[in-house]
């Protein structure tokens, strides 16, 4: 169980790996009624200089939170989440999502923790960075 007392600045949270499977991504595009051809038309994506279909940020961003969510096991603890899409994420890329505690602080009676987040691909290139603030109640 994660507790305020035991959380240490500099601690690395267990990572989470996910492959951007094309069949699953097609299902996601259907779920959100995707219309941007960069996310489903390979020819169009290549015409803009990309290597393949680019996976949408709204799909990939949730995975960035997953290490923290798996670790704290409390979805309502997430207060603020920021992400920067550095490089394109392509279909069939395998991404590993990382989190590292950078700050512990108290604000308005809440115990809060800040984490750096990042995801790298199979070539160890960082494709997304971000941060999350979450509360710890015990």
């Amino acid at each position, binding site marked *: 169980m994660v507790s305020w007392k035991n959380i240490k600045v500099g601690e690395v949270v267990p990572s989470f790996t996910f492959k951007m499977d094309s069949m699953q991504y097609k299902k996601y595009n259907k779920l959100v009624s995707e219309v*941007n051809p960069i996310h489903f038309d390979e020819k169009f994506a290549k015409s803009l200089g990309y290597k393949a279909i680019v996976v949408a940020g709204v799909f990939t961003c*949730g995975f960035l939170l997953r290490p923290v*969510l798996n670790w704290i096991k409390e979805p*309502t603890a997430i207060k603020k989440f920021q992400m*920067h*899409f550095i490089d394109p994420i392509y279909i069939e890329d395998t991404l590993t999502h990382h989190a590292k505690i950078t700050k512990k602080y108290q604000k308005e009676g809440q115990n809060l923790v800040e984490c750096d987040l990042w995801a790298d691909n199979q070539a160890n290139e960082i494709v997304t960075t971000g941060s999350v603030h979450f509360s710890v109640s015990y």
Partner: protein
Amino acid sequence: MTENIPLIVLLEEINKAFDEFGTIEAKIKENDVKKFYEITKNSDFQYQEKGIVSPEYFMTLLAPLATKVMLKVMGLENIPKIRGVIHSESEVNFFKPLMYDTYIIRSQVESLKQKTGKMGDYLVFTFRLSVFDQHGDEVGNDIHQFFLRVKKEVA
């Protein structure tokens, strides 16, 4: 790019388009969330037992509206021809847990800037989607920044 159309005029036009959206109702359906969990391999179903939706779903809930917003902006009379749309960054703020419920979403323009990079001219467009519950309390918001790559005009 927009030499003949000052950014302030374009911004006014975008603000008007956002006003036309007004507020939009979005219902979180259990079936959609289950599909999302299946696609994203989220097996932590403790959320569902409590009737809470994972924060990972927040941006997916808002994705169709974000798309409508972008299409509306790209279809405006004075907007330059856009060659491609790139999602560059996002920020999500959570104030209350997301539940299986019907929410009210409001869209708002944050900023519009013009830039030139190594891949040509582009507009940097930032907007906010705010989610309110049936009591009018803000549940969370989602601020997106997009790069709109401008097509080169052929003389």
